[in-house]
């Protein structure tokens, strides 16, 4: 019995001594490497307080290596042998202890700093990475809720740090030197490489992107930044490599006074991004629908009116289509404007145009009874559409177009306009006349007018035409009529999905996929958390829907290639510096420029116009 007790006591003493020795050795090492310890402690504390990831400390360590290089170069000049140079840091470290003992602590630190700073930061990065790993996997933390509390706290701190970074005036240009569109400060990267500044290749926007965010979440800022950033990067590529000149087309499908404000802001921003002609439709500029090839024009005109494909309506639709085709493809050529088109919907005009063509005259005679109805319907439609599509002007006359469609006020009109504009974009993308353009078609709240042209059709057309399409919606439900359509749109968004604050982010999170994590369960023993438990591999969201629901204004998750980067979007600001003219573009062939027509505005010709009623000079 006695020997057993002695053995147990001995074992306990050995364990305690071993533990004490381990601590003693650790403290001795930390004390011996005091400068490194101090830097590591400061780095660790900074990362904890600012919510930095370990990558940020590693970058800082790498950026501090030049000081080590300069120090070693200086020492190399003094000692002149490799062996002495290798031992120089050790000598300086030893000397620093003498200095510290003599009370010259600052001198001692300066002597060691060139090697201690990088080493300390690397050590801090390693320790911080281990701490995060340990907390996440249940190896550290005093309570079972430690991972949850730790994650929430670090998110708060990361967000605060990112907000501070985007507030700086010059940290986030629209595009960087490598032609990437800069979006803002990274809060957290899951499955993506962490970089302090989040940017995406501008070619990602030549494919399709989806933006989902409820009202007031900062969607407009995000979209404007992508437009201006894309424009800057595409223009730079045009200057540098001769890539096609960019053409940005924005369809603001909600309309209203807000749209005018957004349009003006977009124009100011695009001007600083290098765009010269920025047209706002229909307030200031017009385009001509009648410049489309006759066959396309006939199809587009038919699509502008609502028709049914069943019963008597189907018969009427067929007659309408036949009449439009006859009117548009008549021998004198396509109509030049709406009035000219309506003139053709008369039996006399059609008979004169097809005189001598017996089969077409037969078709005119057959449709004669319905011509009045068709004419009336198009007269009404064209008057509702307004002069905006009656030209003159083409999309390629400007560098950027901002189309304001009154989708909230007059949905059917806006739908017809969207149909026509989509057709014009397709024509601009495929036209072999004039210079080729890199086109980005951005549709803000397109769901408001997607009744006639569903979003997935727009996507499919954009893909086949090589036009980048960016679509925004306020919710998952706004992307399409049913889940199939919504999933089709999101699944083909190979340029990425921007997820902002929204109450129903699950479908997007499902598309983003999961990642494998270690989940640790902790046993409850007698009403308290014990130190026993089990771990197993589980799947966690890559784009956590809980985070998406809680996002603050201006925060977004960029889901792409199986990862998600949470970003604090930097507000796009036009440069406050006065602009000098951008470099003149080379002109290969002296062009006869055709300008889009401005909406006529009479010049002031009397003092009332200048000074207001009753004013006197």
């Amino acid at each position, binding site marked *: 019995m006695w020997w057993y007790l002695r053995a147990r006591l001995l074992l306990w003493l050995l364990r305690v001594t071993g533990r004490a020795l381990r601590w003693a050795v650790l403290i001795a090492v930390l004390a011996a490497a005091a400068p490194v310890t101090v830097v590591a402690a400061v780095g660790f504390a900074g990362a904890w307080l600012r919510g930095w990831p370990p990558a940020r400390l590693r970058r800082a360590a790498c950026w501090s290596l*030049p*000081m080590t290089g*300069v*120090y*070693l170069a*200086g*020492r190399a*000049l*003094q000692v002149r042998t490799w062996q002495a140079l290798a031992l120089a840091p050790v000598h*300086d470290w030893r000397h620093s202890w003498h200095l510290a003992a003599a009370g010259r602590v*600052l*001198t*001692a630190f*300066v*002597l060691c*700093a*060139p090697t201690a*700073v990088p080493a300390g930061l690397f050590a801090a990065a390693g320790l911080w990475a281990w701490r995060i790993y340990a907390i996440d996997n249940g190896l550290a933390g005093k309570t079972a809720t430690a991972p949850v509390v730790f994650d929430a706290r670090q998110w708060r701190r990361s967000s605060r740090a990112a907000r501070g970074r985007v507030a*700086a*005036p*010059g940290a986030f*240009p629209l595009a960087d*030197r490598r032609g990437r569109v800069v979006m803002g400060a990274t809060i957290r990267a899951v499955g993506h490489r962490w970089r302090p500044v989040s940017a995406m290749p501008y070619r990602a926007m030549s494919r399709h992107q989806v933006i989902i965010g409820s009202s007031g979440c900062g969607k407009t800022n995000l979209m404007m930044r992508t437009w201006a950033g894309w424009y*800057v990067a595409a223009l*730079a590529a045009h*200057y*540098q490599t*001769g890539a096609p000149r960019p053409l940005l087309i924005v369809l603001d499908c909600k309309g209203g006074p807000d749209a005018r404000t957004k349009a003006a802001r977009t*124009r*100011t921003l695009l*001007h*600083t*991004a290098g765009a*010269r002609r*920025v047209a*706002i439709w229909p307030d*200031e500029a017009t385009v001509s629908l009648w410049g489309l090839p006759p066959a396309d024009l006939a199809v587009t005109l038919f699509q502008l009116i609502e028709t049914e494909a069943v019963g008597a309506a189907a018969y009427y639709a067929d007659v309408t289509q036949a009449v439009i085709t006859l009117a548009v493809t008549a021998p004198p050529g396509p109509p030049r404007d709406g009035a000219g088109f309506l003139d053709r919907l008369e039996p006399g005009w059609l008979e004169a145009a097809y005189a001598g063509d017996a089969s077409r005259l037969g078709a005119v005679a057959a449709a004669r009874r319905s011509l009045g109805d068709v004419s009336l319907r198009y007269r009404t439609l064209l008057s509702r559409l307004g002069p905006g599509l009656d030209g003159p002007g083409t999309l390629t006359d400007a560098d950027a177009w901002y189309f304001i469609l009154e989708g909230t006020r007059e949905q059917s009109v806006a739908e017809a306009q969207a149909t026509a504009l989509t057709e014009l974009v397709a024509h601009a993308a495929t036209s072999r006349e004039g210079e080729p353009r890199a086109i980005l078609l951005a549709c803000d709240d397109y769901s408001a007018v997607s009744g006639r042209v569903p979003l997935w059709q727009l996507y499919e057309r954009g893909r086949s035409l090589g036009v980048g399409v960016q679509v925004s919606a306020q919710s998952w439900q706004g992307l399409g009529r049913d889940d199939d359509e919504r999933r089709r749109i999101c699944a083909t968004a190979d340029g990425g999905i921007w997820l902002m604050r929204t109450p129903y982010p699950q479908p997007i999170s499902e598309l983003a996929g999961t990642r494998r994590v270690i989940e640790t369960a902790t046993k409850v023993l007698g009403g308290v958390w014990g130190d026993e438990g089990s771990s197993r591999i589980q799947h966690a969201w890559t784009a956590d829907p809980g985070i998406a629901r809680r996002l603050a204004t201006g925060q977004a998750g960029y889901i792409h290639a199986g990862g998600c980067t949470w970003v604090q979007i930097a507000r796009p*600001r*036009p*440069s*406050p*510096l*006065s*602009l000098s*003219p*951008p*470099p*003149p*573009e*080379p*002109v*290969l062939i002296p*062009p006869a420029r055709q300008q889009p027509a401005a909406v006529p*505005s009479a*010049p*002031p010709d009397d*003092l009332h116009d*200048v*000074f207001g009623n009753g004013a006197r*000079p």
Partner: protein
Amino acid sequence: MTDSPDPFTVLGLPLRPDLSDERVRAAWRQVAIATHPDRPDGGDPARYAAASAAYAVLRTGWGRSEAYADLAAPLTGRVVSPVAVAARPLGLGSWRALALVPARIWHGRPGRLVLRIAAGLVLALLATRTGAGAPATAGLVTGIGVWLVLTVRADLAPPPGR
């Protein structure tokens, strides 16, 4: 457009595409008040007519955009080879970038910038006064310099077109 005088100059406005409607109108009013033919002294009909024409061009955002584009890129019809297009330098020239630095400081956060540079200078001065030896001091001053270079950009306003 190329034969008529520059509408921005006629109204005494800077050559910028982002002028507001109010600013253009104010400039037009100023010229019109001084030159209107109904003035007791007869005004300056030629200048009034030129200002009227300029205002007609610049009164809308689209008009300003057009006029700015015409002035910034006069269509000379000069033939440039595609090689010249490919060789065009990207971004700002280094001289222009240097010339823009004062404006970037002024429009950025000059207070913070001064504080940052002052902190860097004080630390560098302290390091040189400690007598820790040339290599270590040079290393530390280099580190402070790298930190300054990496951080001051945030305090500068972005250059135009980026």
